[in-house]
């Protein structure tokens, strides 16, 4: 394949390379576990290596899709309705990079954790990666839905087979909860295609063409709610979040890392890519509801995290809180808000991914996740303590670390929409400090109360290699977020402008901001 040919089909290569890797692993005999691990890591590392040039080849300043490939796939009613059309823009670029990066880290992180049936485990992880990448690059609604559902299956098995004691309950709950939500979305997808067909005689599922679809106010609300439910469950937003703590507690370490790092972002990505551009008026009408749910999610998630006895549950509820910020950022419809929510997604991927790895590492040593079983382990594990503190600080939004950039932009965005949103959301910063530091105090600090803790070994080289990139990621995103922000801005601005033009009475702040944004660039 010539260089520019490779560049043209890079997205397809990235997405399906892991699948090929999974097939390759299936051929390796079951006993050769080291070979399996090596191949798994090699494939995920290769995928990440190929995805890195995306970051540099990406033309900043253009809102449109790049690296697009558009090939007919299924013909319906004589028209090529369903097409294999893929492409990424400012929004999905970082999701793809985050996925490949975290999967590589997760696979490396699970070498010690997974003891039985490694072959199936690593094959499933790679299949999961393909599923996730597919969701982020799909530009055809059916292709998107296929990957959206396909991605559930490997995750279900990873939680169901290698999970903790209540893994079956958790896996089934996770699967059915997400599936139920997305079925409504399927109905909405079909409805939209039919409406387009009736209106223009063109049967297509392509996202681009369906953007400007005219529809009655009532239908738009219904379709919006269908999409919103599917994504709200995925985010998870306040009332639909109860599957997350169970899924996280029961999932193996790497499963949790991927679940928190990438799967949750599909919800917010979905809002930005589908919900808002397809139904601008309905989004504006429902914005207060979604903002309220987001803010409740922030405060509720933080408060409940405060009293969790189990570390993983605590981190799970903290994810509910962090993603509440992200949702708030999206639905205030300001440029800063949306960009903040995107940065928050990436930073949450780094910090929560690292947190789960950290919890997993001491779980592998002590086989317990209860906070009171630990105490004073900083004295015994200095390197672990140091990384734990840096990641905690990133998670609660300390400036010059990734958490702050996301939170700050969302707060700016929400203040422009309505100052009270920002006031309520900012309380999240205090609450997150409360539960994180209290957990840190009970785990790392204080005297060593149990003698098993005295014998804990500090992080070995492999564990350091797994954690250091994540720490580096949080620091880079915190200190110099400009390359990220520049690449996101045009596409996000495009989405926000859709709502503003559709929005009849968007507050004056938007105009001022948009105008200022214009001459500032």
């Amino acid at each position, binding site marked *: 394949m010539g260089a520019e040919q490779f560049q043209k089909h890079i997205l397809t290569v990235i997405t399906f390379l892991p699948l090929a890797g999974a097939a390759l692993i299936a051929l390796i005999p079951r006993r050769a576990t080291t070979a399996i691990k090596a191949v798994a890591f090699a494939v995920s590392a290769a995928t990440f290596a190929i995805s890195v040039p995306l970051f540099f080849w990406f033309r900043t300043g253009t809102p449109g899709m790049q690296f697009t490939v558009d090939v007919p796939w299924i013909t319906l009613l004589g028209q090529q309705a369903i097409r294999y059309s893929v492409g990424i823009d400012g929004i999905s670029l970082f999701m793809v990079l985050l996925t490949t990066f975290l999967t590589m880290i997760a696979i490396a992180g699970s070498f010690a954790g997974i003891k039985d049936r490694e072959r199936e485990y690593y094959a499933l992880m790679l299949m999961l990666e393909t599923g996730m990448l597919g969701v982020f690059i799909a530009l055809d609604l059916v292709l998107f839905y296929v990957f959206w559902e396909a991605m559930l299956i490997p995750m279900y098995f990873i939680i169901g087979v290698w999970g903790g004691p209540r893994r079956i309950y958790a896996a089934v*709950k996770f699967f059915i*909860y997400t599936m139920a939500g997305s079925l409504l979305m399927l109905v909405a997808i079909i409805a939209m295609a039919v409406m387009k067909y009736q209106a223009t005689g063109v049967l297509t599922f392509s996202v681009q063409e369906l953007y400007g679809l005219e529809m009655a106010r009532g239908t738009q609300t219904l379709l919006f709610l269908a999409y919103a439910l599917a994504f709200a469950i995925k985010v998870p937003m306040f*009332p639909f*979040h*109860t*599957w997350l703590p169970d899924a996280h507690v029961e999932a193996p370490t790497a499963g949790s890392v991927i679940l928190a790092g990438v799967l949750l972002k599909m919800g917010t990505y979905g809002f930005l890519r589908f919900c808002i551009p397809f139904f601008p008026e309905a989004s504006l009408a429902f914005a207060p509801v979604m903002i309220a749910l987001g803010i409740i999610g922030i405060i*509720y998630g933080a*408060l*409940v995290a*405060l*009293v*969790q006895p189990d570390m993983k549950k605590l981190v799970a509820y903290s994810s509910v809180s962090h993603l509440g910020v992200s949702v708030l950022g999206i639905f205030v419809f*300001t*440029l*800063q808000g949306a*960009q*903040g929510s995107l940065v928050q997604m990436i930073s949450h991927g780094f910090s929560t991914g690292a947190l789960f790895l950290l919890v997993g590492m001491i779980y592998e040593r002590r086989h317990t996740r209860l906070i009171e079983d630990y105490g*004073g382990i*900083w*004295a015994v594990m200095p390197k672990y303590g140091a990384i734990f503190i840096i990641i905690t*600080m990133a998670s609660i939004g*300390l*400036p*010059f670390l990734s958490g702050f*950039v996301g939170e*700050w*932009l969302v*707060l*700016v965005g929400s*203040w422009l929409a309505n*100052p009270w949103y*920002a*006031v309520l959301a*900012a*309380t999240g*910063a*205090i609450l997150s*400090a*409360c539960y994180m*530091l*209290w957990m840190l*105090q009970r785990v*790392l*600090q*204080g*005297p060593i109360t149990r003698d098993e803790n005295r014998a804990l070994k500090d992080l070995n080289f492999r564990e350091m290699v797994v954690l250091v990139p994540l720490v580096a990621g949080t620091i880079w995103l915190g*200190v*110099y*977020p*400009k390359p990220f*922000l520049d690449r996101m*801005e045009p596409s996000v*601005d495009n989405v926000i402008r859709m709502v503003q033009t559709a929005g009849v009475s968007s507050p004056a*702040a938007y105009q*001022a*901001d*948009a105008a*200022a*944004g214009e001459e*500032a660039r």
Partner: protein
Amino acid sequence: MIGDFLWLIPAFPLAGVLVNGLLGHRLPRMLSGTVACLAVLGSAVVSVMGLLHLLQTPAGQAREIHQTLFPWISTGSFQTSVSLMLDPLSAVMACVVTGVGFLIHVYSTGYMAHDPRYHRYFTYLNLFTFAMLLLVLADNFLLMFVGWEGVGLCSYLLIGFWFQKPSAAAAGKKAFLVNRVGDFGFLLGMLFIFAVFGSLDYRVVFDKVAAEPGAITATLTAICLLLFVGATGKSAQIPLYVWLPDAMEGPTPVSALIHAATMVTAGVYMVARCSILFVNAPAALLVIAIIGAATALFAATIGLVQNDIKRVLAYSTVSQLGYMFMACGVGAFAAAIFHLMTHAFFKALLFLGAGSVIHGIHEEQDIRRMGGLMKWMPITGFTFWIGTLAIAGIPPLSGFFSKDEIIWYSLAGPMGHWAFWAVGVVTAVLTAFYMARLTFKTFHGQPRMPEEIRSKIHESPLSMTTVLTALAVGAVFAGLVNIPEAIGHRLHLPENSIAAFTHFLEPSIVEKKEAALLIANAAGNAPVGFVRPAPHVDHALELPLMGLTFVLALLSIALGASWYVRRPGTATALAARAPALYSLLLNKYYVDEIYSAIIVRPGMAFSRFLWRGVDVLIIDGLVNAVAWFFGIASRLFRVVQSGYVRGYAAGMLAGALIVIWVLSR
């Protein structure tokens, strides 16, 4: 030329952090300590060079040096970059931070000599210096906030340095959380500023406010109050001061550097930096003055009865900070900064003195089990006395000049009022008394230590005592920088040496006369009773009032001597007569207990309810109920499969009937 060296000031400590942080445990102790000290020395040298450069620039030119390093967050209309600024105010602060900081670093090499995590301590100390310098040199609010939270983090790490001690870990967490509550207010203030002015750079914001003063007083008041919430959190004012006394769990040099000289003064620096904002919001100024005065008095009363040497000094710091805020409140920002500088010297001296006392008598902090230490530790004792006299406001030491200037302007300042003056004087008396009590109980009277310790008491090593003497020198002569006009004219000193410090700070702080005009203009319509320009107080009063406070201070020191040296029993007797009042003060008005009863415990209970009740019971219950419902429904349908053949036949026939009936309609 100096312009492009500004980045060196924060860069040196950062380098120190990287060296000690990554390689520390491999380096020998000596090297790790010296690297840390050199880092701070480097930035001290550069900041002094910057200060001198500013001094030399003629009055006409703008005394400001800018350096933009790299763009930080830029989206749409929100553009901020990491850029530094050196103007008189930040130069003074930088010199204080690096100067006192360097001395404390040297002191720490001695104090922490045999601590197992030696290199980690110096990493945190350097990180703190880096964050503080960032805070001070930032040229926009967001970068200042980076430093603001950075010092909060370092104070958390350093308070909880001996994390094996549960009380230290808890104190660290408490400090961070209370600071975070303050930062919450500061955050909202910044958001408000951006929303109103469209940018967070000082230059842009201050010019817009200066352009049309008094235009948006209401919004400015809200902004200033929010910023002040941040200041109360960071500089331990009511109601967010509770963390400072507990912060004494950390090593003493930490208390000296962070909880006396530098970090706690960040709030005062911020208020002084935004003086143009505060001056245009007289209501906010009034609030600051009231809270400052209240804190000063409140903390001083608690300080009277504390028995832990460091807690007395902690409450004294809270009280002195109250003074500074009162000064800002009445519009005398330069006086506040001057007191901040002098306070940094003598409070650091007192803390380090206390540190060498604790070091000398092997970790004993309760002054009731000390006494007569002058014999064993003459240098520490002597320098401690200098600190005590300075803080009590005895001329010619620095405390006298800075504190009396504040007391004078609390009456004669733009927002001055005799009530502030009264509080100022009373607090000065209390300060003199509790410092005298502390010094006499520690260094004079019969030694109350157990016998076996007495033989082992020793004077601190050279590295610590030299620092003490250096700070003592600073404490004595720092005052001469800003001699007030009244004394200056009386002694016919050359014109430029009078109030030199205030004139130097002119460009970056709103001058008193100008402040008075702005306040009058802004307060024109404000209904608040207090808010009106102070009646003209003629300067003749200044000297007699100064004399009054000096005499009162002397009296209280004499009272202290009589109570604690000549007749040691009197204090306990007096306390016995009013046990309720004594225990109230001893338990610091039960503020901590009230907070935990009002905020912490209900908060936890509510979260537990949220988790158990709402999350597990209602939402999860609902989800499981749906699953249970389908279970029941399917069990119901099972009955239909009864296996009774003729039952099926009857069913079929009935169905047929219905179908026929429907079709024939």
